[in-house]
């Protein structure tokens, strides 16, 4: 026996590595657990990547309200491969959110949450929300203008909680206003508190994967019966099971490696998200917008009827969490195949369409005034001085921030390119003077002459 082999044998004997790990690695899994099973492990690989790159970033980051932004500039522009490191952490976060979503959808449409894996689902749901919390607190740690305003928006949401809302918001921000404690708090949430919970829950989640076994691919008509399932599953493993390592695990390893390589590739190619303005809440010419995975929620806030919005902000998340946690208690037996559970598949489609529609419209943000629109009177030339005056007013009075004419302007209100065809001067006047729910009343803002000039211009658009 070689010298090194001897050393290894000694270490292995005294530490029990093989004795503990090998049975786990070699444990039997159902046959045919193929490519649809790689998303959970891909999430785990992303998580490990996030921990590792997060540690790397923590070596360069200054967690204080005063210095965080400067250290971000340092990491991005000066540190060796700092921009790539930031990029990996950013795309790793995106990957983790993506795969946690796909993993959850896979588990849901194949009903893997049914007996005896209810606790796998429950711990997974908590991990989903912790992952989102990590995404939110992480983008905020850039501590640029977006970071500052993200923390304010979060505090505003929490303040909607009845009675204790203001207190929760103050605890979140570390005070009644943005200040010296705010960034440290979010650093602590993002680097210590939430990761600690995640380590525990990821460990528990994996332990449950071993304890309850990987769910076998569903077959239409093969029902889950809690009375007999465990025995049947053990029998299946004994008869047809294959060792996890390497028969099944090679797919996880391959997919995980491709995911990590892609993330690094994206980081090299695109780099980290650009920093916005410094974290100075008195800089008001900023347009706060969260990272893409928060956009659907951000969009929802713009689209909800204002009357019920405050209630939805509080009740919505509670109902969502409750419904997800309740799922395995509502149905823990019976059919697992998506072919026999069309409503589950249909429901998943609806949720996906909902989320992606919100993401799509959120990226366009048609509800936001388009402050950077180019003045229409500089885009379209006219020889008619009356029209010219109307155009100037159309821009200066803010109309153009929300209305388009010939492709110039915002999208909040209707396009007015051809408004003169359908609206007469009187209708236009009434609308401009009185406004409505989504448009300010300009009655006290415009002089009579200005109103006439504006109306003459709009009525001529045909």
């Amino acid at each position, binding site marked *: 026996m070689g010298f090194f082999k001897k050393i290894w044998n000694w270490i292995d004997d005294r530490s029990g590595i093989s004795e503990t790990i090998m049975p786990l690695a070699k444990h039997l899994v159902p046959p045919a657990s193929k490519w649809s099973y790689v998303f959970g492990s891909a999430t785990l690989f992303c998580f490990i990547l996030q921990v590792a790159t997060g540690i790397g970033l923590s070596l360069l980051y200054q967690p*204080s309200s005063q210095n965080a932004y400067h250290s971000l500039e340092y990491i991005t522009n000066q540190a060796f491969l700092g921009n790539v490191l930031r990029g990996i952490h950013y795309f790793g976060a995106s990957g983790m959110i993506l795969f946690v979503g796909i993993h959850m959808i896979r588990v849901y449409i194949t009903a893997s949450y049914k007996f005896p894996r209810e606790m796998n689902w429950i711990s997974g749901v908590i991990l989903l929300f912790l992952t989102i919390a990590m995404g939110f607190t992480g983008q905020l740690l850039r501590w640029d203008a977006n970071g500052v*305003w993200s923390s*304010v928006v979060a505090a505003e949401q929490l303040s*909607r909680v009845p009675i204790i809302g203001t207190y929760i918001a103050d605890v979140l921000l*570390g005070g009644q206003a943005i200040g010296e*404690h705010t960034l440290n708090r979010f650093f602590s949430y993002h680097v210590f508190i939430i990761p600690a919970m995640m380590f525990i829950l990821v460990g528990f989640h994996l332990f449950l994967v071993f304890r309850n076994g990987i769910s076998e691919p569903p077959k239409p008509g093969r029902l889950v019966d809690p009375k007999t399932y465990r025995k049947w599953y053990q029998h299946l493993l004994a008869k047809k099971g294959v060792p996890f390592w390497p028969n099944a695990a090679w797919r996880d390893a391959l997919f995980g490696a491709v995911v990590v390589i892609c993330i690094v590739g994206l980081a090299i190619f695109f780099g980290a998200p650009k920093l916005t303005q410094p974290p100075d*809440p008195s800089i008001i010419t900023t347009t706060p917008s969260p990272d893409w995975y928060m956009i659907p929620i951000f969009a929802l806030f713009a689209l909800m009827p204002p009357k019920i919005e405050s209630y939805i902000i509080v009740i919505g998340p509670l109902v969502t969490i409750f419904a997800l946690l309740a799922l395995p208690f509502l149905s823990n037996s019976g059919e697992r195949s998506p072919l026999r559970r069309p409503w589950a598949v249909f429901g998943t489609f609806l949720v996906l369409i909902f989320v992606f529609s919100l993401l799509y419209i959120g990226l366009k943000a048609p509800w936001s*005034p388009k402050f950077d629109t180019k003045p229409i009177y500089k885009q379209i030339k006219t020889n008619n001085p009356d029209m010219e005056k109307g155009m100037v007013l159309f821009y200066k009075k803010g109309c153009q921030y929300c209305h388009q004419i010939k492709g110039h302007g915002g999208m909040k209100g209707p396009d007015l390119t051809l408004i003169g065809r359908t609206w007469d001067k009187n209708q236009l006047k009434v609308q401009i003077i009185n406004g409505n729910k989504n448009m300010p009343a300009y009655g*006290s803002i415009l002089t009579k002459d200005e109103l006439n000039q504006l109306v003459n211009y709009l009525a001529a658009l045909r």
Partner: protein
Amino acid sequence: MKQEKEISESRRNFLMKFSLGLGGIAALLAGIPILGALFQPLIKKGEQKWRVVGKLTDFAKGETQLIKFRNAEEDAWAGVSAKSAGWLRHKENGEFECFSANCTHLGCPVRWEKDAELFMCPCHGGVYYKDGTVAAGPPPKSLTQYSVRVNKGNVEVKTAPIPLTKITA
């Protein structure tokens, strides 16, 4: 010497409660200061302060101007994060009004559009009139106001917490 298993049921009970109880007390003692750190913002609330934002003559009648001041936190390590903005309006009758820059919808910074005489929010399209009342969009209430006073020829604004909107607003 007695065998371990022979200890009486009541003694086992006592040892169990003793261990858990003592462990609990130890955890509690160590935990209180930790919770103290977590809830620090509720325990130690700073006082709000008056800040000079300019001379009386800096603000023309009928104009709305951006003012910047440091919020109630004094420590240098807050950096620029401790700055606040407000919109100071010198009304025609010589009185002042100072609006918080935070939209009442979700707190984003509203900007004053001078020609349009409107405050507009970039986030979700909230719009307010020059007196701070809602003109359009999702905001549930008027812009919050800071206290303003004129002191020895200076205009002073009193710092305030970030205006948080309640569910009933």
